[in-house]
């Protein structure tokens, strides 16, 4: 057990270090950056440019810069913006809650919708293994299948446009963008959550089919336990670790999707900040945000591993 926990903590730390390193290396590969371009455009002489670069520590050899960067990161310092010298953590701090709010709301939408669709889709398998006797109407099953397929294939940009067209322009129920009020969170969360629901539904459906035929489920049915008890306590309970793992995989997708969603719904947030930094070639800010996002994803994965360990007795058993 301790070995298992240590192993996945070690893995998380190693992944974090790798993500930091790959970001650092990638963004230092080519010369030419927003700062130099901006200063040159404003007619600043080379000496001024060199001075600014020295002030930011960009004139040091790469290994030295890398060492300084890692040391600063360990102190929780993500560096400064190349263009205005503001600390990255300050810039991000102003935006982070809008993204956290969107991510949590989307995750809730995606989980409820995904598990629901997957449960409906998995009913025919459960029926085959006699876990469930109620037949799901064909219509409902087809709708669940179509929704899962569209959720998996449709780009967020498209579902988002359709959603604002329907709910903001046609029905006039919800605002088309902005942030601050709860009503402005609903549409973006539905759109981003819908996109994550496809994967969750797929995993849920496959898990139900695979678990339904297992001996412990068949034993529970043979003992005469009610369908509800078998369905929830045996089947869904065992599917839980798989669903949690799938949700942690969605963490990276949520951050990627936040870039698109925030820009299309004119919301503030880390995704918008990242896009602006990319467009201005502020690679120090890009580096800070990418590193932060990777760390969030790695933390989410570690958290899911931990939760899977808590919810899946077989995993604990195998490590003892």
């Amino acid at each position, binding site marked *: 057990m301790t070995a298992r926990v240590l192993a996945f903590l070690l893995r998380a730390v*190693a*992944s*974090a270090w*790798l*993500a930091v*390193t*790959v*970001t650092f290396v*990638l*963004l230092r*590969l*080519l010369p030419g950056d927003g700062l130099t371009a901006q200063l040159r455009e404003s007619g600043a002489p080379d000496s001024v440019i060199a001075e600014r670069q020295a002030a930011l520590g960009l004139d040091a050899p790469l290994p030295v810069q890398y060492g300084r960067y890692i040391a600063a990161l360990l102190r929780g310092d993500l560096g400064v913006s190349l263009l205005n010298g503001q600390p990255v953590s300050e810039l991000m701090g102003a935006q982070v809650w809008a993204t956290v709010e969107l991510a949590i709301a989307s995750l809730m939408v995606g989980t409820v919708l995904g598990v629901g669709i997957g449960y409906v889709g998995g009913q025919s398998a459960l029926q085959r293994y006699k876990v469930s006797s109620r037949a799901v109407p064909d219509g409902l099953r087809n709708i669940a299948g179509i929704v899962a*397929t*569209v959720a*998996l*294939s*449709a*780009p*967020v*940009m*498209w*579902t*988002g*446009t*359709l959603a*604002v*067209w329907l709910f903001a*322009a046609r029905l006039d129920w919800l605002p088309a963008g902005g942030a601050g009020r709860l009503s402005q969170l609903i549409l973006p969360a539905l759109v981003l959550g819908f996109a994550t629901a496809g994967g969750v539904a797929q995993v849920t459906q496959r898990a139900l089919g695979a678990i339904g035929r297992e001996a412990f489920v068949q034993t529970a049915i043979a003992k005469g336990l009610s369908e509800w008890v078998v369905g929830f306590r045996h089947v869904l309970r065992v599917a839980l670790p798989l669903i949690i793992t799938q949700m942690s995989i969605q963490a*990276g*997708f949520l*951050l*990627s*999707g936040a*870039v*698109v969603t925030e*820009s*299309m719904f004119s919301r503030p947030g880390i995704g918008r900040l*990242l*896009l602006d*930094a*990319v*467009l201005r*070639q502020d*690679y120090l800010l*890009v*580096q800070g945000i*990418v590193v932060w*996002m*990777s760390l969030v*994803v*790695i933390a989410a994965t570690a958290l899911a591993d931990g939760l899977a360990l808590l919810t899946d007795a077989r995993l604990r058993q195998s490590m003892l």
Partner: protein
Amino acid sequence: MKSRLGAISPLVVVLLAVLLAPIAAPYDPMATDTSAQFQAPSAAHWLGTDQFGRDVLSRLLHGGQRTLFVTLAATGIAAAVGTLLGMMSAYRSNETGVSHPGDWIAFGAGVIVSALFAVPALVLALALVTLLGTGLPSLAIATGVSQIAPFARLVAAAARQAAAMPYVEAARSLGAREARITWQHVLPNLLPTLLSATVIAFAYCLLNSAALSFLGLGAPPGQPDWGAMLYEGRQVFRVAIWVGLASGSAITILVWLAIWTADRVDFSSQQ
């Protein structure tokens, strides 16, 4: 082999059709006509017109070709580098106790894959665009590189499974060298996995390159492109929903077709 060909052919036919589609375009995709702004779909303009009076159908057909070129280039990068890294990271020398140079290569390849995997795909692509600048070639490279890690993981998992097969044992006992076993015995047997992983990579490359293009990092403004058309559609959704509807549906259908194909290729390999 026949069923695998059957599984992949609908996708290939559709891709060829999209590549050749500009021939069928009824209008010049760049021709503006201010008197024909925001026209709803009609007999003259099947999919309507946009804010500059340009024919949406013609832009869809021309844009599809451009979007597909970028996506196919990206898929090629992901598949080529992903196969190489995946095969290398799955390599295990049989010599116990002695550290073989091959083991170090495998370790290095595994580290690179893990590092790339730690950064979310679209975020990695955005970081690469910062480095490479905007434009279609950098879009293709950025999207392709961001799909290398998932591709390599699939290949590595399949290669490790294949390495335990009797034919590998047989080749080894005949005195074949490890490199020969890896590339000439294991790799050809991974064909269904590679095919299915390539189709999946294609789906994600399409979604991500369209997203980057939507964010304004792709083709120069005005050029038809599915992602850019979605952006235009988002701007004018109150008056002309059809502008974004067409390209969004096209992307969705193509991604769905790719996922469906990948499933079928996978199943035919299991039977």
